[in-house]
């Protein structure tokens, strides 16, 4: 029996995967309870760019059905469908809370690039302040069209993730017009899982 690979969890009333949905290594994606899964050859899945893209494609397909899924982190396999169902049942309350948190929402992402100047201590602090200011500017522009937000800064790149109502995506984009940044989305809410 092949191991079962998990892509995402969906609301109970969410549609099934469209028939031609393909996951890791070309495997057919199917519904198992409230999860989207496929078979995989091995319980240990190596991360390659192609497989990462395939995982994300399945999650994006789930989002495209109109019902917002909870994306699973890459690389989760179970010995069998039964084991996957057992783990899901054990965590059902947490997962339901997670799905309720993101219902009707999508994740939007703003990527800012602010060069960090390491030529001197003062220059470095000034560029850090510039980076902070850029992030604050995004927050001020977006105002009330964001439900929740998460921020991550690494080197010259600041990634701002926002949970936004599906109906507010156009307003979100409008408010960021003219900003020197990459705006990505709508995508599934990877950054907003079940409440801790």
């Amino acid at each position, binding site marked *: 029996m092949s191991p079962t690979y*998990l892509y*995402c*969890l969906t609301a109970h009333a969410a549609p099934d995967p469209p028939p031609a949905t393909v996951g890791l290594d070309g495997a057919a994606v199917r519904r198992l309870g409230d999860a989207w899964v496929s078979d995989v050859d091995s*319980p*240990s*899945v*190596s*991360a*390659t*760019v192609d497989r*990462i*893209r395939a*995982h*994300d494609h399945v999650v994006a397909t789930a989002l495209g059905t109109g019902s917002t899924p*909870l*994306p*699973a*982190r*890459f*690389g*989760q*396999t*179970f010995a069998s469908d039964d084991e996957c169902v057992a*783990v*899901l049942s054990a*965590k059902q309350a947490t*997962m339901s809370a*997670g799905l309720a948190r993101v219902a009707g929402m999508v994740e939007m*992402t703003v*990527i800012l*690039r602010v060069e960090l100047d390491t030529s001197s201590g003062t220059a470095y602090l000034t560029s850090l302040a510039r980076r902070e200011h850029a992030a604050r500017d995004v927050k001020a522009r977006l105002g009330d069209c964001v439900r929740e937000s998460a921020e991550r800064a690494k080197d010259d*790149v600041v*990634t701002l993730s926002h949970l936004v109502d599906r109906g507010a995506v156009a307003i979100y984009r409008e408010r960021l017009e003219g900003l020197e940044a*990459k705006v*990505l989305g709508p995508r599934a809410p*990877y*950054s907003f*899982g*079940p409440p801790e």
Partner: protein
Amino acid sequence: MSDADEPLILSDLISRVLDKGVVLSGDVVISIADIDLIKLELRLLLSGIETTKRESDVSLLPDRARGA
């Protein structure tokens, strides 16, 4: 989206799919070697872009500057 943004978008995709999302099983199997593999692929992509850029810069130089 321009080609210049590809590495940024790929890097965002990789960190999102590998580092975020719900963890159910508690034993997400991604070995260090695999992460190194992804870094390597990223490096290759980036160095590919650098090479292309250098080549296009060089082709703009007059012949003598290229040592011809």
